């Protein structure tokens, strides 16, 4: 699949809850392949970013499947780990901003979202085995972001009323504050 197959706001599917996968079939495996190829195609057009993770809803499949980059500092490692029916089973600490996050389905907008610094996640691997993951820092933030997708939440929904939390990425890859009143507050693309 291509980056054009990734749906973006205002597509209403992004605010719908995905359904659990009951049986892992060849169709599920094909879905994971499609998600991987779309994520990799997206990053070829992005000089400063790499696709770190993707949820199935982002290629318009309302199923609880996410993929996570094996090494998100290395663009040349194209391996992703799929997680099926992921859910957070435990959180530690109070939500804090770990770093600004963006989303392949929210064009041009980045934001500081408070996230739990440590979480535990339960999911199924591709063989249907249950896996439990302890995550902290960037990985904890990323899993919360993707699991939100499976529940119909987009990262900007957490910071809707925080004028200070919104950024854009300039040409050289640096974050630059966005004018909340002008670009965010009444932006129909983001909220309708």
């Amino acid at each position, binding site marked *: 699949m291509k980056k054009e197959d990734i749906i973006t706001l205002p597509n209403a599917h992004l605010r719908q809850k995905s359904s659990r996968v009951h049986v892992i079939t060849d169709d599920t495996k094909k879905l994971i392949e499609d998600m991987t190829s779309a994520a990799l195609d*997206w*990053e*070829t*057009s*992005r*000089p*400063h*970013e*790499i*696709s*770190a*993770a*993707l949820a199935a809803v982002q290629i318009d499949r309302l199923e609880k499947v996410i993929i996570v*980059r094996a090494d*998100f*500092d290395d*663009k*040349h490692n194209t391996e992703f780990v799929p997680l099926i029916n992921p859910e957070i089973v435990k959180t530690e600490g109070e939500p804090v901003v770990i770093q600004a*996050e*963006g*989303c*392949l389905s929210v064009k041009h907008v*980045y934001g500081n979202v408070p996230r739990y610094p440590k979480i535990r996640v339960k999911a199924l691997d591709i063989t249907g085995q249950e896996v439990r993951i302890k995550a902290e820092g*960037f990985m904890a933030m*990323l899993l919360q*972001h*993707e699991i939100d997708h499976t529940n119909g939440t987009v*990262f900007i929904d957490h910071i809707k009323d925080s004028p200070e939390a919104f950024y854009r*990425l300039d*040409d*050289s*890859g640096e974050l630059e504050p966005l004018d909340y009143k002008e670009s965010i507050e009444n932006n129909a693309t983001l909220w309708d």
Partner: protein
Amino acid sequence: MPHFGTKARLIFFGNERIATATTTTNPILKMLIDEGYDVAAIVLHHTFAISRNQRELEVLNLANAYDIPVHYPEKLSELHDTLAAYQADAGVLVAFGKLVPESTIALFPHGIINIHPSALPKHRGPTPVESVILDGSSETAVSIMALAREMDAGPVYAQSPIQLTGAESKQELAGQLLEVSAKSLQAVLPQILSGDCVAQPQDEDHATYDELIEKQDGILDATKPAARLEREVRAFLGWPGTRTSLGSVDVTITKAHVSEIESELSIRCGDGNYLAIDMLKPAGKKEMPVQAFLAGYKHKL
């Protein structure tokens, strides 16, 4: 979710000596490193490594400081697999000195981005810096272009103009061109890599090519107009120099101006004007102003 802060991986070709007898502080490579690009390797043509005068390669300082591997292939084709293994997004080439085969350009998803210090399609070829001085141009430019198989014929991403004062030496102009190139590339490279900047083909009908400058071009030919000879002094400074004999003394003229009247030390030129010498270097001696020269050599003239 994207992870950002990762920058494109680049391979750097060349050493930024864009004219003969110049040195460079490598502002373009420095900019790429400072901007956070992942410069995975530097490629130099092997003849650079064995140059006759063993002049130190400035780019090696940066390579050492930032632990960047350096390759000196005899032919780029022999480096094919090594370069492919870097999986770089693009090449950046400045004064590499040799044509690059298409198979090497094809290794990079965004090709090789070449910086050529002229207002392309004018002054294609090996001597753009010298040639604008020799032409007496009032303006030149740096061109950022996509490298193509034919010399300096690739489509152009961006050009930044530079005004000439008419007094600059080759070394001064080369330094200025490199600084402007670094700024221009800094601005346009992200757009090239994101596909937002599309290169435009050159106007082939207006293309001009410069010849290589040779050592004998440095022998002053007094039948030329004075203005032309003054430009040669600036364009040939360092190499091949502007050489002549004054009486029994062989000298290289390093600074001169055009004059309608004869002066203390001047040469009558083909157009009737005089090339008045300001600074010169007698063979085997240091550069000196004309007064010092006259004090020491008057009896030999």
